[in-house]
Each structure stands twice: as C-alpha cells, then as structure tokens.
C-alpha cells in the first residue's frame, strides 16, 4: 500500500487505478458525464424559455430590442477569445511548456473577468432603466413604449428569464474563474507534466462548455425577431 502512496505523489496516479491511461480515461469520462448533467440543467431553463417565447413572441421581441446588441456581441467575442486561450493553455500543458500554460491561464482569467465586467454593466443598465422583475419593475419612457405593445406582464416574464439564464451563466463563469486560479497556483509549482495534465484538460472542457452555453444565449436572448 505504501508504494502506491508515493507513486501517487510522483506521477499523480490514484491508488484505485492500475495505470495512468485508465485514470486519464476515467477523468475524461467523468467530466463529460458532468457536462451532460449541465446540458440537462441548462436544458430545463432553455426549454421553459422556448415555450414562453412561443407563447408571447411580441413581448419577448420588445424585451430583446431593449438589450444592447453591441455589448452582447463584444461579450461573445471576449468569451470566444477566452476559449482560445484556454485551449492553448491545455495544449502547452500537454507539451510541458509550464511558462506558456501559466500565461494562457492568466489570459483566460483576464478575458473571463472582462466578460463579467461587461455583464455587470448590462445589469446596471437594467437597474437604471427600472426593468428588473419584482425588485424594481417600473418601465417608463422609451423603454415602456417598447415593452407595452407585447403586454407588460409578459415583458416582465422575458426579463425574469434574461436574469435567470445570464445569472446562472455568470455563476458558472465565477466558479470557472475559481478553478482557473487553483490551476494557475498548481501550474506555477510545476504539478503538470506531459504525462499528467488531466486537471487542466478537465477545467478546459468545463470552460468550453460555459462558452457554448453563451453561444446559444446570445442569439436566443439578444437577437429575437431581428432589429429592423
């Protein structure tokens, strides 16, 4: 039993596995199964959104016209950029280039922070325009004119889903940032070798999944019915 323990520290292989390949396969299958649970988790709220959008399209179109499409598009590009840097950090961990891994991880965190910053600006905008459901729902002026035709009640429903979906996504981003920080600390200590880089790959897959959720959120929330 003792030799297994220091084997673990040396190569990072846990005692219940026979060899590193088996552990690597297990880790990959494990994270992909977790991502399937995340698909079903986000799936529930996407399905509800789809059904209410099918019921109340005019109100949802009104709500989506209020969102700032420029901020949405830049956010998408920022997040795609963070996906690129994440993929490059996994690649450099694979090739054993410790300095590049750390650099790309930090770059990913910076882009992630930028995304959350832009999101914060958008949320602030909603509070200023008083279109936060139940907390401060009193649309007026140009915003009211935009929302009124579809029915104020149903517009509030749109913003409930806007905050629920982007809020859930932002929460997953924050968790991702925490994981990236943990990775940076371990990478700096040289924990990852070309034979053992599973944690970087696992966090990478999680980060790409969060990016994919946004890839669908952006058109569904921001681009309903077109801006003509």
């Amino acid at each position: 039993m003792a030799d297994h323990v220091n084997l673990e520290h040396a190569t990072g292989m846990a005692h219940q596995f026979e060899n590193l390949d088996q552990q690597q396969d297990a880790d990959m299958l494990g994270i992909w199964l977790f991502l399937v649970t995340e698909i079903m988790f986000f799936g529930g709220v996407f399905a509800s959104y789809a059904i209410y959008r099918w019921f109340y399209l005019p109100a949802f179109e009104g709500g989506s016209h209020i969102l700032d499409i420029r901020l949405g598009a830049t956010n998408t590009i920022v997040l795609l950029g963070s996906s690129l840097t994440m993929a490059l950090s996994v690649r450099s961990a694979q090739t054993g280039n410790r300095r590049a891994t750390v650099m790309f991880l930090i770059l990913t965190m910076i882009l992630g922070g930028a995304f959350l910053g832009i999101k914060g600006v958008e949320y602030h905008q909603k509070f200023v325009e008083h279109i936060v459901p139940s907390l401060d729902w009193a649309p007026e002026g140009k915003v009211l004119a935009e929302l009124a035709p579809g029915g104020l009640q149903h517009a509030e429903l749109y913003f409930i889903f806007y905050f629920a979906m982007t809020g859930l996504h932002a929460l997953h981003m924050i968790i991702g940032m925490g994981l990236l920080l943990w990775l940076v600390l371990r990478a700096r200590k040289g924990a990852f070798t070309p034979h053992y880089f599973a944690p970087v790959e696992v966090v990478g897959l999680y980060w790409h999944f969060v990016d994919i959720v946004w890839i669908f959120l952006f058109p569904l929330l921001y681009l309903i019915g077109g801006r003509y």
Partner: protein
Amino acid sequence: MSQQIDSIKSYVLVFLSLIGLTLLTTGVAFVDLGAFNTVVALAIAASKMLLVILFFMQVRHSGGLVRVVILAGFFWFALLVAFTMSDYGTRSWTPTPVPWSSMAPPTHP
C-alpha cells in the same frame, strides 16, 4: 488522451471562424427574414458549438464512448423539449371550451 497535439495555427483558425460566425449572426439579425431569423440564428449557433466541441474540446481525437455520451446529452434535452411541446402544441386541437356567453377567450392557449 489525445496524443496528437494540434498546431497553434489550427486553434487560431478555428477562433477566427468563430468570430466570423458571431459577426454573421449579428448581421443577419438586421435582415428581416420573418420566422426564419430564429432558424438561421440557431443554425449558426449550432455550427459554432460544433467547432468548439470538435476542435477546442478535442472530441475529434477522443473515443466513441465520449461521443455517445455527448449525443445522449443532446438527445435527452431534445426528449424534454419534444414531449413538452407535444402537450402545448396539440392543446388547441380538440375544441377548447367555447367561453361562456361573451367572455373574452382565455389569456393563452
């Protein structure tokens, strides 16, 4: 797992095509295609997703089991949407109760 290591160039290429698709979907939003807007937007989003899954998430190199797991995930999501829509979609097929005397029709189907 993925022994082959893709070149940095391929990653950047994928990134640029993702940016292109994002600009495309934003641009298409300004064109009035009626109901088609949503279909196009979803198609572009799906292709961006495929790019990320196949290249960034290395599913191109990974084994069959991982692919089955991913397909199962999307298939089950489709089950949830399809069967829920089977209720909402067909609710108006049988004659909904004609409202008593001159009441307004119900707020939604």
